[in-house]
């Protein structure tokens, strides 16, 4: 039965996609009017709606008939930015060259994005999750289509002279992070009545990485003090306390060449090297919880957004940031102080997927292994259950300063039990979906 519903869903969403692209807004209005007059027109003794129905149908038939007579040859070159961001309009240019002999005018440019319809398994997950968490017939809580990639707008093309190229400004608003793939471009020509569009298409595969949504964070005094970093300046080649000279000593195997003090070697005849003070700087761990049985929910996306907000903010400070999460395997990415930039961290976060086949303990192991090198830990958690509280308790027992965020569903009334953070409650924050920006802005 579910398979049948899934087929219906695919068919209906495909039909909707086709109708929205093929019909102009006036044409869509005409379709609605045709449906209403058809329903009214069954009883021809009581109403003349059947006359309206046939008239509208006649006009539509003419409009559709005009779509058979449109042919055009063209090439396009799309100039895309490297990144886009969820919810932020992505503006770019498309150069269109008319290869035909006639000037083409009144055209609209439509992007053909890759088919965003989910597989049966993905669709089923979402439906079951909705059934579990949303009351039937509740339209208020019903969320937007979680599979829709972007909102595209038809861009108006200027007149295209024969054998010439014009630039069209296009815009779309990404709705999901990750790679947004373009399949091609369609040039649409409306009929004389302005109801129905005829299409010519050209393939133009391209992609753009859509970064997660980020929130503004106020300047935050991150927990923890500086710590000796074993890698030394090799790990932090930029600036810091690493140039503090302490003494000279004899060369030992493995000392870097640039530390050799040439003048002393000339005087003593033995290689002498300069000795510097130990390397101290701040290093934070950003722990992203990816363990959820609701992979397509807003909660996980918000967790990624919160993590991205921290990644952007902290990497503008003079510190290192380790992003720790578990995906297909356990990952640790370090950025800051010249190692990597915020955009690289965001690229990783743009591709993070929920983990459903590994236990939460794998994240715990990963974090505890890194605990010796970090000054503080920021945890972005999807729940506040026993396993997560245990992780927090273990980190606290290691004496690490913590900043814990728990992402919760909108309308969650029960206050969060502080658990292992009861001695430090101001560093445990509950972020409610829909109010996250406001709650993050209040952080001190």
């Amino acid at each position, binding site marked *: 039965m579910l398979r049948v519903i899934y087929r219906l869903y695919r068919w209906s969403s495909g039909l909707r996609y086709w109708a929205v692209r093929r019909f102009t807004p006036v044409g869509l209005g005409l379709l609605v009017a045709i449906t209403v007059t058809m329903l009214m027109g069954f009883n021809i003794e009581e109403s003349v709606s059947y006359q309206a129905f046939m008239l509208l149908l*006649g006009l539509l038939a003419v409009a559709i008939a005009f779509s058979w007579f449109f042919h055009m040859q063209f090439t396009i070159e799309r100039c895309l930015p490297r990144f886009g961001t969820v919810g932020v309009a992505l503006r770019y240019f498309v150069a269109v060259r008319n290869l035909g002999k006639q000037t083409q005018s009144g055209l609209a440019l439509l992007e053909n994005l890759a088919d965003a319809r989910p597989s049966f398994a993905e669709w089923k997950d979402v439906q079951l999750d909705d059934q579990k968490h949303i009351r039937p017939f509740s339209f208020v809580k019903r969320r937007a289509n979680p599979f829709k990639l972007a909102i595209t707008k038809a861009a108006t093309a200027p007149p295209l002279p024969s054998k010439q190229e014009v630039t069209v400004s296009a815009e779309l608003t990404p709705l999901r992070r990750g790679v947004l793939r373009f399949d091609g471009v369609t040039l649409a020509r409306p009929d004389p009545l302005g109801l129905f569009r005829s299409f010519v298409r050209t393939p133009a595969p391209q992609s753009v990485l859509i970064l997660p949504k980020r929130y503004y964070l106020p300047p935050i005094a991150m927990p923890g003090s500086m710590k000796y970093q074993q890698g030394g300046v090799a790990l932090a080649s930029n600036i810091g306390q690493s140039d503090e000279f302490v003494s000279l000593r004899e060369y030992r195997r493995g000392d870097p060449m640039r530390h050799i003090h040439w003048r002393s070697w000339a005087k003593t005849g033995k290689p002498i090297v300069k000795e510097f003070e130990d390397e101290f700087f701040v290093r934070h761990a950003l722990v992203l919880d990816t363990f959820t049985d609701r992979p397509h929910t807003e909660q996980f996306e918000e967790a990624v957004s919160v993590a991205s907000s921290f990644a952007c903010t902290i990497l503008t400070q003079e510190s290192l940031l380790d992003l720790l999460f578990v995906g297909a395997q356990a990952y640790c990415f370090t950025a800051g102080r010249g190692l990597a930039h915020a955009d690289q961290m965001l690229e990783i976060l743009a591709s993070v997927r929920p983990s459903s086949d590994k236990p939460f303990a794998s994240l715990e192991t990963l974090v505890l292994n890194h605990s010796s090198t970090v000054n503080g830990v920021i945890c972005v958690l999807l729940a506040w259950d026993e396993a997560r509280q245990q992780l927090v308790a273990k980190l606290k027992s290691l004496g690490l300063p913590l900043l814990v965020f728990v992402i919760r569903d909108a309308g969650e009334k029960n206050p969060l039990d502080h658990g292992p953070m009861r001695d430090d409650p101001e560093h445990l924050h509950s972020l409610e979906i829909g109010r996250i920006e406001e709650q993050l802005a209040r952080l001190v």
Partner: protein
Amino acid sequence: MKPPPFLLAAALLFWGWQSGLLIVGAILAVVIESPRFVRARWDFSDEDFGRIWTLCSLLTLGAILFAFVDNQGPANFAGFFQEPNIQTQRGAGSSSARTAFAMFRWLPIIYFPFILAQFFSTREAVPWKTINFVLRRRLRKAKLAGKPPPPVTTVNLTLPYFALTLLGAAAHPPEGITFFWGLSVLLAGALWSQRSVRFKPAAWVLAVIVGVALGFLGQTGVRQAMRLAESMNLSWLSFLVRRRFDAEQSRTALGKIGDIKTSGQIVIRLEPLNGNAPPTYLREASYRTYKGVTWLAEINEEGFVSVGERGANTLIWPLPPLDQETNTHSANIACYLDGGKALLPLPTGSARLEKLNIIELKKSPLGAVLARGPGLAIFDAHFTDGKTIDSPPEPADRTNIPPREVAGLDTALAELRLEGNSDDEKLHNVAGFFSDKFSYSTWQSPSKSSDTNETALSRFLTKTRKGHCEYFATATVLMLRRLNIPARYAVGFYVHESSGGGYVVRMSDAHAWTLVWDEQAQTWRDFDTTPPSWIQIESKPTILRWLSDVKSRVFFEIRKLITGQTKLRQYLLWAIVPGLAILTYQIVFRRRKKQRGAIAGGLNEFTDWPGLDSEFYLLEKRLAERGVPREPGEPLSAWLERVACDSTLEDVREPLEVLLQLHYRHRFDPQGLVAEEREALRRNTTMCLERIGRVETQAAR
């Protein structure tokens, strides 16, 4: 997308013309275009639009209710739920359709206030949340949860209203092709502004002409197809319809084995008027030909003659040829017209029906009277002894006897030895024959005879000699015809059960009897040979029957209400008026009151916006009155610097700066002020106002 100028007015005029409300349409058209000439605009808030929308929604609900009641919806639906069959289903469907069409016709008027508010508002659009229920719920939830509201989007409803007006214009029965041409012109006008710039106007004109031509051909084809479908004989469906009595035929239960089940449901209520005795029989139909086990009238509905009302809306329906007769009796009869059309149960000799609120009345030559109207008919029947509205006998009423029944009839008649008797004696003997030798029974046992040619009637006449009224009536009619006396088979109800001041007639009182032609009086007389014991057998009062009677009474009263036999509809209309008045008061007067209150309090704006209740505005007003008004767009801080240049205001300069900070925070800080700070803003403003007052007093001295 905005339609061309005056298109909406043209659409409203068209709607008025098509709906028979031309003056209303013209008034609406003038008013809708008045914003082009009237400069006044109102700053309707979201709440105002919401109230107007509520008003329109309530009007819609009221109109639906009114249209449903007015189109016999409750009666037809009640009939459908009580006795679901094709006829009642069609009745219910017809009511729904008529209600829907009435609604479509009224929609342009109902939603006129809303579209007018849009035209006269400063925004020239309405907030999307006003008409989007889901968005409104979401916003309310967000507000309760303290979340920031999403940005307000507005929508222009001009084109949807244009479409609504055209749909309203389509909701009337077809009377020619004017609607089609008018609609074509209006649609062309609307599409002109949306045409593609790629094509020349000639191409557009060609496309419209081809489209309209296709539409014209299409609508002609639809009309012809529907006519063809209507002309097809759909009698094969008729077996699905179970009617109480049919004017065309009456299928008897002759030959049916087992018990005949009858229902105790009350179907007619009768009250004799002027102290008269009640009529014994209420006849619904009579039949001429017996074929198989069915009596046929051999007259279909087309053979019925229309009976006119005596003067428009007098509710008096004389039944020719007795309309000039002096009536001696009268009774008030209430019966159901299931499906909006049914035969009226009338006393023998009915000559005039009064207070009968129906649409149409027809009469058959065999005395059946068919009424079309609401689901319940309550009327006064005036009747007389002697004559009836039935046509005189024809040869068929004398000779029409199925050959299969002749043997059985002759056997029975042979027992009577009626040779040489007059007609009256024959009738007397036949009546005696049935009362002496036959008994009433609703039970029929299976036949043990091996004679396959034996009919149910001959078995009744020669062997079992017991049966129900259909046996007696059928046998009597055929026996009398065998004796060369004209007779017909009549069906209807027997009136015997008194209830309160009147009588009730149940389904179990349904009866069949004989009409016999009285040669001397030249009229038809009721001739009932069923033994009187049938009444006792059929009437079996039980507790359940009492409960059923109570339910029937309640149902009857409800039907009276919903079919307009009471003054409910008028009350309903009057009940809407105070509702509208209250809403108008809410929209107009409360807003004014609020504005007045705000002005009286020194604030010229509404105070429900964050921070606009700040007392600092009083200070600003007071200082501006001293001759240093704030320029448009001038920040408060810059203006205060200018104000503070006045040496007389030395004392308030410092408190003013503190107050300004508090005011800014109160106005723009999402966190707002804590209670102490809010109080400080209020207190210090009062203090500053007092100081300024003192300074002015001193300066005046």
